[in-house]
């Protein structure tokens, strides 16, 4: 795939202009700061949830309170749970047309180009603003085929059996501190169900927007892909720039059944005050394929290691991860592959770029359970440093309990070569253009996997990051 050339020159705007704007706070309900039983009960009450969900939340809250902060990975010491608002209801009800939304919210999504993208190349869109999904749509023909794409709260009400069967089974509430937090206060997110044999050829997209200061967003996504089905789900996320920290802590659970395939693409571009602590995990059954394509550009701190549990022979897992850590950012990203069954295969390709004081770390795990013979697993992590101060680390964990396996691992660290910059500049490219081009080339193995529009978006975001970087 050839990505159309981008006129880097025209990109005069910065994050602040394009994504960093904020709306006045006009809410139907805003919880008080801090987290306790009362806040959780309140969320559940406002959502008018069944008892089992309320109990699920309260149990999770206990797990959350009991668990210590993780001490590995990124520095979370500045994250103050008492300063965060855990739930904001922005509108009275959800719209199925953009016109139904309050003016300021509609304008926000317009500026972010979501309605336009929907018209052009998406099969369905969910748009979340603060804690609730304010807009949802799915093409009629997909509805007729039995595809379900609704927000998670609606799913709890309208598809209780399906939700109850799978919710919290892939990532139990006590999995880790942030999964517990999400399980206690989750709101919004997507529920996707693709019936047997149905192929959703155009992507479904969810867009997450935080607007208020000091707020947490805790969406919860559950995707079920029945045998032989296919779906590509894409999420994008942005927020205004505040000095106080915001928190985004999502849980994404995916079940990919026999012969099915699911691809989950993220372009994370949070503003640089957001802690992005996300748990994503999929279970892939016989001959199923799960692919995580993960682009992390924004946030102050990201800790995210999309995982695939390869449950039955023939299952295949893939993580393609790009992380860009600019000044003051720490991207701690990677992937996990857990080979439970024999004859399963996995691949993790991670490309990280560190600029200025930015730090990008690869953290990954390949685990092969006893009895999972004839496993093939491959890990490639390449780091690119843009200048003297930038930093990268690699933590490639391997836990192999079986002998008859084939495991590959390669890691490279490189600097942007002066010779490359000079070569491109000697052809008339400015230093920033040359940098962007080298970086885009570096991540090309991943961008070529993206739908064109997202590839262009990713390259454009990198060009934006690069503008400030050269003097």
């Amino acid at each position: 795939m050839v990505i159309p050339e981008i006129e880097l020159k025209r990109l005069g705007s910065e994050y602040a202009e394009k994504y960093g704007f904020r709306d006045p706070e006009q809410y139907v309900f805003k919880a008080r700061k801090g987290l306790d039983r009362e806040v959780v009960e309140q969320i559940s009450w406002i959502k008018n949830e069944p008892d089992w969900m309320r109990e699920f939340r309260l149990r999770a809250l206990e797990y959350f309170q009991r668990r210590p902060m993780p001490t590995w990975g990124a520095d979370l010491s500045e994250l103050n749970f008492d300063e965060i608002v855990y739930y904001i209801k922005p509108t009275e009800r959800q719209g199925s047309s953009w016109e139904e939304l309050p003016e300021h919210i509609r304008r926000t999504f317009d500026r972010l180009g979501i309605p336009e993208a929907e018209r052009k190349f998406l099969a369905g869109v969910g748009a979340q603003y603060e804690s609730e999904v304010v807009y949802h749509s799915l093409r009629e023909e997909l509805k007729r085929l039995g595809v379900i794409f609704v927000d998670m709260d609606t799913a709890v009400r309208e598809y209780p059996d399906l939700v109850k069967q799978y919710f919290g089974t892939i990532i139990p509430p006590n999995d880790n501190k942030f999964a517990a937090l999400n399980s206690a206060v989750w709101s919004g997110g997507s529920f996707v169900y693709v019936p047997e044999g149905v192929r959703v050829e155009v992507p479904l997209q969810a867009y997450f927007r935080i607007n208020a200061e000091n707020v947490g967003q805790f969406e919860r996504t559950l995707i079920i892909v029945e045998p032989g089905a296919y779906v590509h789900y894409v999420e994008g996320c942005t927020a205004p720039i505040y000095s106080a920290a915001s928190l985004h802590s999502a849980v994404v659970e995916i079940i990919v059944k026999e012969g099915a395939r699911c691809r989950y693409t993220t372009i994370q571009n949070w503003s640089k005050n957001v802690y992005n602590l996300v748990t994503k995990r999929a279970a892939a059954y016989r001959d199923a394929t799960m692919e995580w394509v993960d682009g992390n550009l924004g946030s102050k701190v990201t800790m995210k290691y999309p995982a695939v549990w390869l449950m039955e022979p023939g299952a295949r897992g893939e993580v393609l991860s790009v992380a860009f850590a600019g000044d003051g950012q720490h991207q701690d990203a990677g992937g996990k592959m857990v080979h439970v069954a024999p004859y399963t295969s996995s691949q993790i390709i991670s490309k990280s770029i560190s600029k200025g004081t930015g730090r990008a770390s690869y953290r990954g795990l390949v685990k092969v359970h006893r009895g999972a013979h004839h496993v093939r697993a491959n890990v490639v992590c390449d780091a690119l440093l843009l200048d003297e101060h930038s930093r990268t680390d690699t933590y490639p964990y391997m836990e192999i309990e079986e002998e008859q396996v084939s495991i590959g691992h390669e890691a490279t660290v490189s600097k942007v070569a002066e010779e490359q910059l000079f070569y491109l500049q000697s052809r008339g490219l400015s230093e920033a253009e040359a940098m962007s081009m080298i970086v885009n080339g570096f991540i090309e193995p991943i961008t070529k996997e993206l739908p064109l529009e997202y590839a262009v978006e990713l390259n454009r975001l990198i060009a934006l990051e690069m503008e400030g970087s050269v003097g």
Partner: protein
Amino acid sequence: MAEQTPLFAIENLRAGIEGKEILRGVNLVIERGEIHALMGPNGSGKSTLAYVIAGHPNYEVYEGRILYKGENILELPPDERARMGLFLAFQYPTAIPGVTMANFLRLAVNSVRKARYGEDKALSPREFRRLLREKLQMLRMEESFASRYLNEGFSGGEKKRAEILQMALLEPEFAVLDETDSGLDIDALRTVSDGVNRLFNPTMALLVITHYQRILNYIRPQFVHVMLDGKIAVSGGPELAEELEEKGYDWVKSRFAEAAS
């Protein structure tokens, strides 16, 4: 005497790298419509001169000037020089993984075109593709070349062709070809030389760095210079190249030593 600014002039250029002086007083004047050849033994400083002309940031200039259209360009970054119409075909072109020729070339062509001919002179994707196809044909290169990654895995000859392809698209007024002939097979040398000749016009000038007489049979210089130890030791007409081919550099060295002593 008709006082006219030459297209390109080097005045008493002393330059080096990491404190090591390599160019030790180079003087050269090149007028529009001229082709100059620069020869000289390995390590004498030919590529260094080419890099300094193009503005490689690692080279230090201790003294002297490089005038392009009368302006001293030594303070300008390489991209500005390129946008003024200077071009260097590299002896060892650099690979840029993941960047396709087409993407790179379009950005390069348009930044140079906008600077030289005006903001509105950028090519649309369609116009660019047409131009690219035309130049590829001229150099007998496969169209699929455009979707390959820049210089990555290119054979020696392919790299050299790709350099001339870039020259064809960027339409420089002054181009330095650093050993473009080495690595080309006999047919490729002819194709590439034909290409260069077709690009050449009386408003531009060329400096052709080479070790061999052969390319000069196709791209015919009016002047031949021999660099020895960071200086232009001898200059002459095309016959000088033939003489060198016959006698080797020792002959120049001894003559230069005599002249210097």
